[in-house]
């Protein structure tokens, strides 16, 4: 059974556990009572507001029928957060460590054989892994942090629909994975306007430099045709509203308490753009990706599960 079959089967055959507002151990999910009539439906997008990063993920993933929808027993999972900068979590420069941890826990609970986490950071990688809080949190949860700091970790792939970007060196952890979760943080960006799902994938390649030199937005959209993440989870808990992508101080950050999940990362970016306060079509790489047929940005036509917590 390949991933696609598995996914279909699970979606059609299972009605799993909503009780994800459940606090405490993740291990309880699969025995918990089924909730909401809405779970089990195939959503284009799930959006949550009002809770902690972990609680929001619990409820959002249950709306998808639980993590087993995506992770089969024994599969190798890659989780790609944004760990680009040597800044603490409250600065909103990196993905929230609580969210990353929660995802890792869910994966392992669903029977993943291993969960690998990495990012090709902009600041020195060890400082980023350390000060983002992600390194320690992931390892505590049983995940594996791997370095992305050496060219030797990358292999060349072709980008099928690339207009400016036809080839890229991609981290082997992603190439060897069965399941791929893209976990960007939503934030301001000085030149791509905002950073969310597609932009986050610049952290799986070695040569970002080429992207900047060859029409950044087009390259971001191009790379989306390489491999669609199985699920994108946009962390909009602490959102950097200006001075991005690094930020200057905590004053750049708004506590938005939101999260967006989608199997279509163009849709996830479109929703994230709205949360951030811009029109998706104003963000050039979102528009380009939608035009290239890599995903949808027409939020009004999507089936969206809106969940409010707290």
């Amino acid at each position, binding site marked *: 059974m390949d991933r696609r079959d598995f996914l279909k089967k699970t979606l059609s055959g299972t009605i799993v556990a909503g009780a994800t507002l459940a606090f405490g151990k993740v291990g309880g999910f699969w025995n918990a009572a089924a909730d909401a009539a809405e779970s089990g439906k195939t959503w284009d997008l799930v959006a949550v507001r009002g809770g902690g990063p972990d609680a929001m993920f619990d409820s959002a993933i249950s709306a998808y029928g639980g993590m087993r929808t995506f992770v089969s027993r024994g599969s190798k999972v890659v989780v790609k957060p944004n760990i680009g900068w040597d800044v603490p979590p409250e600065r909103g420069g990196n993905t929230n460590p609580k969210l990353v941890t929660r995802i890792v826990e869910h994966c392992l609970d669903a029977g993943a054989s291993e969960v690998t986490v990495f990012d090709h950071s902009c*600041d020195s990688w060890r400082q980023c892994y350390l000060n983002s809080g992600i390194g320690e949190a992931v390892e505590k949860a049983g995940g594996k942090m791997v370095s992305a700091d*050496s060219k030797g970790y990358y292999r060349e792939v072709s980008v099928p629909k690339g207009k400016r970007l036809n080839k890229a060196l991609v981290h082997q952890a992603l190439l060897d994975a069965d399941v791929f979760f893209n976990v960007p943080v939503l934030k301001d960006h000085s030149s791509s306007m905002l950073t969310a799902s597609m932009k986050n994938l610049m952290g799986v390649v070695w040569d970002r430099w080429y992207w900047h030199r060859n029409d950044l937005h087009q390259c971001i959209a191009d790379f989306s045709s390489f491999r669609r993440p199985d699920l994108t989870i946009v962390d909009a808990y602490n959102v950097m509203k200006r001075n991005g992508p690094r930020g200057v101080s905590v004053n750049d950050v708004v506590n938005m308490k939101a999260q967006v999940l989608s199997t279509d990362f163009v849709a996830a970016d479109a929703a994230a753009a709205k949360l951030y306060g811009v029109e998706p079509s104003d963000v050039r790489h979102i528009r380009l990706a939608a035009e290239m047929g890599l995903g949808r940005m027409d939020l009004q036509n999507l089936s*969206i599960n809106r969940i409010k917590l707290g």
Partner: protein
Amino acid sequence: MQLGSLKPLRVAVAAIFLGLTAFLFLDFREIGARSMADAVLYLQFAPSFLNFLEAATLGATGFLIVIVLTLAFGRVYCSTICPLGALQDVLGRLGGRRRYRFTKAHNGIRYAVLGLTVVLFVAGSGLLLNLLEPFSNFGRILSNLVRPLLLAANNLAALVFEQAGYHGLYRVRWPAIAPLSMGVALAMLLLVGWLSTGRGRLYCNTLCPVGTLLGILSRFSVFRIRFDSGACRECGRCERVCKAECIDFKAQSVDASRCVGCYNCLAVCPDNALRLSGASGSGSGGAGENPGRRKFLIGLVAGSVGLAATGANAASPPSAMSDAAPPPAVTPSRSTTVPEKRTSPVSPPGSRSIKHFTSRCTACHLCVSACPSRVLAPSLFEYGLSGMMQPRMSFQSAHCNFDCTVCSEICPSGAILPLSKERKQRTQVGVAQFIRENCVVYTDNTNCGACSEHCPTKAVHMVPYLNGPGRKLVIPEVNAAICVGCGGCEHACPTRPYKAIYVNGNPSHKLAEKPVVEKMEPLPDTGEDFPF
């Protein structure tokens, strides 16, 4: 205490100093060098002295202790604390056991070298000191030769372990390649290796300025090795194990100025005819004492003649970056045409000014080894001839991490003075210069903004630029007042061969203004609702 047990004691102390000092330079996993450095290097003579010149604090009195130690026991510094001395013993031992015999001191050379070193230093050029000073030479050998081998071994092992799914050993990126430093380190390793296998501590007793200086002091040392003429049967064993070649058993004399206090002779003498005594025995202060002093003075004068030339070089303009790591191997879309105009190299934060830095740095490369970002790289001639190998900020392959103060914490000589994180974040080592004609936004009409992304203070910010159809273009603008010169922009700038933005060094470091933090404009209130 039995005199014979002084040798094993000396070996043990030397091994500890050698091991700890080597660890500082090889700690590529950053497991403790930072916290240990001050304690381990406290007694290193030249760095401590230079540090003392800067600020006469308790932390910089190690060299005074060494002086007291030398006046009491002779040059035990050379046999225990000095890592290059211990390294020579190791190399000498690797080269097999050798029989030494007494030779005359090369007083002419050693006093001339010391004199020239002092004169040049006083005149503002540390060139000779940097080339000959033992701690720095040891550091460069470790940092430029041993460390790369260690990294290669680590990376190979990491590769093997990764196949088995273990990622605890990660690969470590190479530092920028610095052929000049590697060459000098290799030359020095070969020189001390050759001398130590053949002639023991000949380097320490002819070329090392610290050894010569301590040798002058040790002529007056209280406890030194002397012959008990009544007990000596002239078997000659002491002379044969004296790696300083300073024992003349026939004359029953020990040249205290060259004796490094290894105590091999004490351990080997069957009759206890050698004593470590305070009493003046045969009064053998060493051969050629007076001619040596005369030559020392002559050397001092001769040195001042040759001084002008080297001193002048210190002020010569920096040459282009030539020993930096090569750019990523991707064909650039279009080559840029406007060269950067660098008028000054960038010295590390905490070094205050190029002048201060170059006059205090001995190019030991501890900061180069310890820099987590690998932004520090040995210079070629950017600081002039006399500043060769002294580290500079090279943004070719890295930038200076905004929160990091490692180099200022670890520098043993006070060339890079300690900075608090807050102070470091406002220390302006240089200022970003934007060359619009090289910028991707200007040449290609597409967004880039890599420079602004990396800027920790937003001194490099993006401003609206001529908008093509459907494109909200923005182009960089520099606010020099809040720029700290970290090089994030230059490092990230994708243009080649010339950068569209680069950092020009401040000859004297300045204090950048704090970025103004405006109140955030209120958000469009969606309550807890969804805007879609």
